[in-house]
């Protein structure tokens, strides 16, 4: 054989040997938990905020000498798409070394993955998705949620808007279960108060052009436009509203409560309304602590609206693992017993469907390029007026 070939074969063998040596040896003390959120795409701000918050919780726990285990966070991106979500959920749940998951901001994805987690028996706590069916649509013991559902959100929103004098709406919602859910609950609430919804339109979650819908809404002269959907199309609808000269208040849900909404609209965002379960960060029991520790880590981006919930979920999971060990079945059994557990977002109690009840709903309004709690805003004090009245 020519020398060149011999050298090559030798090289190949050597590389093979290196490959074998590079195979990892498992360490027993490390416990893996998964984080799944929308890290890319239009809702990435919220996903990254959740990831940073979960990462913070893990880091704090790992720096605690009294912890029984070393925790490793496996981060997965669901891209806010249900099919990608099911794929990464399968990946996490099928991996025996992952014992629990902090899952999902996007309701679209969360509702799709509940079956996957149940199939593999992975205990999960949802940190940001608000669709009620995620916990109430089934009887799976694996699924829990620390944040509230959209039912209370829309109740409070309707009460508030009526209090402000709004009686006539037009509704645009996205056609995912998330948007449809919002539409359903809000419409019911409006009817209960005796208000009027002049038109309802369903749009796709990535629609670009809303001229058709808005052109039909304009002559109806609604006082407010209720938007059931997420930030990307919220930005488009609001800016196209302006192009067509529609003078109505823009009322959204927790889906638009992100910095990207304001970044995308600039001055047009002024006066937009949104609602969210849970008290504002400063008023949370662990709010200051969380804000300080978060700032220390110098993450790019804020924790956004649901970061504290992700933190609380991670903490709860790690507490449970400390108590019963890294065993999925034991974790599920233990999570079922969670009652009045302290956390940075207040006391957590899981009902028979794994849902935590979050009583407080906070109202937000955009003022000078920032989401401000309603009560602290100049709109509440009367110095500024909302549109459409």
């Amino acid at each position: 054989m020519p020398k060149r070939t011999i050298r090559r074969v030798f090289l190949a063998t050597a590389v093979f040997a290196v490959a074998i040596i590079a195979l990892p040896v498992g360490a027993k003390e490390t416990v893996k938990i998964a984080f799944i959120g929308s890290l890319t795409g239009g809702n990435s701000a919220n996903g990254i905020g959740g990831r940073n918050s979960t990462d913070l919780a893990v880091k704090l726990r790992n720096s605690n000498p009294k912890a029984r285990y070393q925790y490793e966070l496996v981060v997965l991106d669901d891209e806010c798409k249900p099919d990608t979500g099911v794929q990464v959920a399968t990946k996490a749940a099928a991996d025996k070394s992952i014992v629990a998951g902090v899952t999902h901001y996007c309701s679209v994805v969360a509702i799709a993955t509940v079956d996957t987690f149940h199939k593999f028996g992975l205990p999960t706590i949802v940190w940001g998705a608000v669709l009620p069916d995620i916990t109430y649509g089934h009887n799976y013991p694996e699924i829990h949620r620390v944040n509230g559902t959209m039912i209370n959100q829309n109740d409070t929103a309707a009460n508030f808007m009526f209090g402000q004098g709004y009686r006539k709406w037009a509704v645009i919602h996205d056609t995912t279960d998330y948007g449809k859910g919002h539409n359903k609950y809000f419409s019911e609430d409006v009817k209960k108060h005796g208000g009027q919804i002049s038109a309802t339109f369903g749009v796709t979650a990535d629609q670009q052009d809303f001229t058709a819908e808005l052109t039909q809404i304009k002559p109806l002269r609604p006082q407010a436009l209720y938007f059931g959907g997420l930030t990307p199309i919220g930005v488009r609808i609001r800016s196209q509203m302006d192009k067509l000269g529609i003078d109505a208040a823009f009322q959204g849900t927790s889906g638009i409560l992100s910095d990207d909404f304001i970044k995308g609209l600039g001055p047009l965002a002024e006066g937009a309304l949104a609602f969210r379960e849970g008290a504002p960060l400063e008023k949370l029991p662990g709010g200051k602590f969380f804000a300080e520790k978060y700032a220390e880590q110098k993450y790019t981006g804020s924790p956004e609206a649901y970061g504290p919930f992700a933190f609380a979920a991670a903490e709860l999971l790690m507490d449970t693992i400390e108590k019963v060990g890294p065993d999925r079945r034991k974790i599920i059994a233990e999570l079922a017993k969670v009652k009045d557990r302290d956390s940075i977002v207040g006391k957590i109690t899981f009902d028979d469907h794994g849902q935590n009840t979050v009583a407080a709903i906070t109202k937000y309004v955009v003022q000078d390029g920032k989401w401000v709690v309603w009560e602290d805003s100049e709109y509440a004090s009367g110095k500024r007026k909302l549109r459409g009245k």
Partner: protein
Amino acid sequence: MPAAISRGRVSASAVAAVFAAGAALFLAVESQRGMLALLLAAGALVVAIRRLKGLRPFLQAASEHEETGALAGVAFTLLLCVLFRDDHFTVFLIGRVLLATLACLGLHLQFGSAGVANFAGAAFFGVGGYTAAILSAHSPIPHIVAVALGGAVSSLIGSLLLLPLLRTRGHYAALITIAFGLLFRTFAEVNDSLGGPQGLKLQGFQLFGWQFNEELAIGPFHGSFYINYVIAAVALLAIAFALVRGLDRSWLGLALDAVRLDETAAAAFGLEIARWKIVAFTLGNFLIGTAGALSAFMVGFIAPNNFTFAESLTFVSIVLLGGIGNAWGVALAAFIVVVLPEKLQILQEYRFLLFAALVIVVLRYRPQGLVPRPLRRYFRGLA
């Protein structure tokens, strides 16, 4: 003569074994550094094999004994399942590779054999999946029939495109399939009867009481429930492979080749171009739809975002990388395209970019693909 034949069979089995071993290594390695080392080793191995002239007669003999190679391949795939029986995700990956190969075999039939450009591969995959989802949820039709119907509905819908496809050629035909792909995805997303953007869920596949979603237990052997799907996929793939290779080597394949290479000349020879294009397109869609149906059962979920243009382009990349016209190349390319991004996490985010770039390089410098189309051999044993 006898010595040559047995040498051929052994060579074929050996080639299959080498690939299986390689696949096992790629699937087993978890760490990033290990993966990179493995890739380097694979590259070095390929270079070494091309230089070692002594191996040529063995490879030649191996390619003449495809059936042995195929049988060996099936055996080794099942062996891989046994090896990884406790690792759900790895078996899941094997299943995905097999079903991607099946779908791309259909595409290969359309592209490589009849030269019909199909840029809506993912859409036909989706049609099969949705058919299976709706039939299994709303009717008592047995699942195996639902899978076959998935293929049939795919062919049916594909035949709707046949009229415009036959009247056009080249880039016009490409546009039709691209437009259809976009149309299907938008329709699936907007229309609630297909579940809308939320998609549809599927229960586990059932075959005469054999529940595919339950753990496989044969005596002392326990394995991930995904193994059930792999077995079904292997069975389907074996049938499809035999079909496609048989077609390739028969006079039908000859006709398709002629149509692809020069339509005018083929017509001059009396070949009905339209008929063979129809056959290739319809059969190809049947394979794609069947793969889509079984895949939907395996994943348990189907949504419009599974079938974007980017996914169709991924299928096309597999066919191009593997070499238009070589069925084995499709399998190899499918493995690379499906497994590598899962294993090399850096690749995951960049995978569309990398595959597009790879295809550009291939088209520019090696249009025949990784495993080029062998010259048609009319008589076995000669040349």
